[in-house]
């Protein structure tokens, strides 16, 4: 900021900032508050602005169901497994993309883009056909596989950018003082790219947690994730409060992810923690 801009900022109101704050509140915060209120409303009839009766009746109803708990466990396990596998496969690949000059690079990039350009559901149905023959339909690992495919794009291209931003001279300096290629990757490259990669991992986890189409198409009937369970419950019992409770439950991973993200990405301690 220039020296002149500082006194100016005092006089002028940041209308753009205020506008975005208001829009953000209306679009995101307000619906969240409404949903949260519904989840603790035992009775809320039109035209009252606040519920006639607060209570946890629908929470009890939801949490008493055994299939609810099964779906929570399934979703968490599934997301952890998919994210871990995705990181294991994609991070070395991303490093190769970022550091090596190989001719297949642009072709691979194109194939990823192409994969995203077609309607996903059609693709899923085609894959489901193949899985049916392989007897993967309705199995945990079938869902892992389909969701894994969905994470590849994010898990490769964000880390590619992160690795490309790592100063090659830093890596060379580490070689110079005696570190082999693997040690350089572990002690220099990864910590330098750390915060961005952590963000990619978090996004992958959350995206996988909320992924519905693949989980439903491949998982049914044997595997039921939380979002699939939510659709199932709402279809059978169209009660607003039930939907609200399920929504709030689904926020949990998002909130955890955000808290984790603030600590990890904001502080830089993540990167330092990796140091040699």
């Amino acid at each position, binding site marked *: 900021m220039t020296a002149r801009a500082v006194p100016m900022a005092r006089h002028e109101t940041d209308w753009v900032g205020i506008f975005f704050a208001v829009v953000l509140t209306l679009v995101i915060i307000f619906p969240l508050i409404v949903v949260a209120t519904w989840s603790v409303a035992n009775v809320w009839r039109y035209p009252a602005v606040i519920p006639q009766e607060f209570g946890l009746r629908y929470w009890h109803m939801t949490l008493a169901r055994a299939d609810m708990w099964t779906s929570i466990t399934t979703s968490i396990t599934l997301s952890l497994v998919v994210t871990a596998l995705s990181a294991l496969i994609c991070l070395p690949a991303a490093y190769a993309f970022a550091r090596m000059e190989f001719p297949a690079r642009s072709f691979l990039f194109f194939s990823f883009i192409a994969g995203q350009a077609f309607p996903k559901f059609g693709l899923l149905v085609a894959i489901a056909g193949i899985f049916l023959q392989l007897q993967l339909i309705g199995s945990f690992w079938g869902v892992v596989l389909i969701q894994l495919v969905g994470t590849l794009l994010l898990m490769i291209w964000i880390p590619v950018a992160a690795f490309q931003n790592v*100063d090659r001279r830093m890596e*060379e300096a580490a070689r*110079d*003082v*005696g*570190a082999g290629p693997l040690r350089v990757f572990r*002690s220099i490259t990864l910590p330098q790219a750390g915060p961005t990669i952590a963000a990619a991992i978090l996004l992958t986890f959350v995206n996988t947690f909320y992924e519905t189409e693949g989980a439903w198409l491949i998982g049914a009937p044997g595997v039921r994730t939380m979002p699939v369970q939510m659709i199932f419950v709402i279809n059978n019992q169209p009660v607003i409060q039930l939907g609200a409770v399920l929504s709030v439950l689904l926020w949990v991973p998002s909130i955890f992810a955000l808290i984790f993200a603030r600590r990890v990405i904001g502080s830089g301690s993540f990167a*330092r923690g990796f*140091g040699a």
Partner: protein
Amino acid sequence: MAQLEITDVSKVFPGGTVAVDRFSLKVADGELVCLLGPSGSGKSTLLRMVGGFERPSSGVIAIDGEDVTRVPPERRPTGMVFQSHALWSHMNVFRNLAFGLKLRRLPKDEIRRRVEAVLELVGLAGYGARQTNQLSGGQQQRVALARSLVLEPKILLLDEPFASLDQHLRERLREEVRDIQQRLKITTLFVTHGQDEALALADRIVVMRDGRTEQVGSPDMVYREPATPFVAGFIGTMNLVEGRVAGGRFERGGFGVPVPVADGPVTIAVRPEALGIAPSDGAASHVHRVTDYGTHAIVDIELADGTRVKAMVREARDWRAGQGVALKPEAFAAYRDDAVVHRG
């Protein structure tokens, strides 16, 4: 103790750029050699081949008689200081310096002792706990130097280490590096494109051009007796006047010197301090501009045909623009086909 021998080394990059072309050089134990040349002349590529970061297309690099051409950087007894310092920003100063020692599995107190000693050596005692981004540019380069020195490499490599620092700091660090180098007697290859840096630092200068050696010699030698017009023009300020010799004499626009060689084209090189001038009304050349530098002044002179040359004088006030001058070169060299044919 440590001697570097580069024999017939070439580097051709994919795409066909010949960065280094059949280059040979021997650096004696404890010697500081400067690679000097304009940007793109292959200095960094050569240095990076010595450090192991580029593989030569052909040729041999040997340290103490041992062929290291195919040895990866982590197993070479070389230490490199990069222009961009390349400190690891996720580690503090201590950990930057200790990293290489830890890889060598030295005991903890030994590591601490050596890191403290090297910090002392580069004038940063007590800075171990600092983050690297809390240091000034000069301090960062000192840490980078310390990071290499702490491992006691046989050969120290520096690639324009002070290029991004301001003039004043650059000169100070240059002297410090020279002091440290002489104290440790470490064999050093120093890349620079600044001729003043090379002249101030080097035991020997290698002037590079298009990946090849143009001249090798002591700073004094390279300055006084540049082997080619390229070296003459690159080191220090030099007047280069092109023209022809006819009947043993070179003449151009009122600038004339005897050159006892066969008739034909030559380039005459005269340093400003070796170009005597005297006021002369009605002379073919005249003063174009006078620039006062305090300790001396530079007079720009326009020859009869419009060519400009510079002469160094004591006092600016003795000269004014438009004044006619007679030229008397006191020392000069004549070049033909990139070689000296006469010194006068």
